[in-house]
């Protein structure tokens, strides 16, 4: 009984993740291509995707390494881009915290945008799910996406230098990042955070060691949090 319901929860997770195939496939391939263009060997690009498993952080690190930023700045910036997974982890803890430690460790590795977004909606709308069903659903959301991300990286890394010149690949990263960010600008606080970060980044571009990025990121975060507090005080926060 328990076996069949956890099994079906797993497949429901896999089915619900289908639309994300259209994001993970091209995104993984793009990382492979840009990594190859930046001079990474296939094994290096693959190790990157397999061990880090965080698209936007990988793109950030790749970009900054090409700008010859100091290693510590590359690491801090890439992790800052990925800080949201800490928030995902915190947010899913009430639902998955009762699982054995090793299962939570495996779940942690698979904590990405789509597994979080699908799971939190599922867990909130179906509070009666057992811990095993929740875990099965969570892992199901990655059953297609994770293998696809790895194989798309491989395909891109193999194609790499065969991609024709003049495709303006330098601008694929800005376009992709802007496309990812725009739908996240849901509240005035998010908009202010982004605007403050942009203005600060342009003003602070002259700082050494790419520190302008860190300063701008912090300024944006603080601005967003302040606006949220102010809106809550006025009762205007939804």
């Amino acid at each position, binding site marked *: 009984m328990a076996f069949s319901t956890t099994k079906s929860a797993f497949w429901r997770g896999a089915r619900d993740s289908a639309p994300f195939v259209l994001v993970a496939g091209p995104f993984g391939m793009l990382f492979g291509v840009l990594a190859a263009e930046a001079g990474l060997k296939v094994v290096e690009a693959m190790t990157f995707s397999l061990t880090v498993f965080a698209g936007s*952080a990988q793109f950030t690190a790749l*970009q900054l390494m090409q700008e010859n930023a100091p290693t510590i700045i590359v690491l801090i910036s890439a992790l800052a881009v990925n*800080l949201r997974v800490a928030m995902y982890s915190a947010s899913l*803890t009430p639902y998955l915290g009762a699982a054995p430690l090793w299962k939570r460790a495996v779940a942690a590795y698979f904590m990405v945008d789509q597994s979080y977004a699908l799971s939190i909606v599922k867990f909130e709308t179906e509070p009666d799910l057992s811990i095993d069903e929740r875990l099965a659903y969570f892992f199901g959301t990655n059953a297609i996406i994770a293998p696809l991300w790895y194989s798309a990286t491989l395909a891109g890394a193999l194609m790499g230098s065969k991609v024709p010149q003049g495709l*303006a690949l330098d601008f694929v990263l800005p376009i992709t*990042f802007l*496309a990812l*960010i725009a739908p996240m600008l849901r509240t005035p606080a998010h908009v202010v955070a982004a605007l403050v970060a942009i203005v600060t980044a342009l003003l602070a571009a002259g700082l050494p060691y790419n520190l302008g990025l860190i300063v701008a990121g912090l300024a944006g975060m603080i601005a967003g949090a302040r606006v949220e507090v102010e809106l809550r005080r006025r009762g205007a926060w939804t």
Partner: protein
Amino acid sequence: MTGTTGSIDTGTLWTVIVGMAVFSFALRFVFIGLMGDRPMPEWLMRHLRYTAVAIIPALVAPLVAWPPATGGELDLPRLTSALVTIGIGLLTRNVLLAIISGAGTLYILLWLVA
């Protein structure tokens, strides 16, 4: 250590890969693995909420204003395509459509300029 574009040093690359692998996992594990069911401090959650919408635009803004591919000159096709991407993304909330619109705008304008 200047802003010039160059090839990536192998030692730096592997340091970054290993460092990111360890710390990315730590970020994902810290709460679900160590916090158990204790609630998170509200001020921390409030700042974490805005990390992505702050740091990603901060990374992109200089690349739009001063594209390395044009030697740092403001470039009309790239600027327009960035604005189209944001506009379509805001209007449709569709990531893929925004990417396609932005890339299409860029290629059409680059072709017209050339």
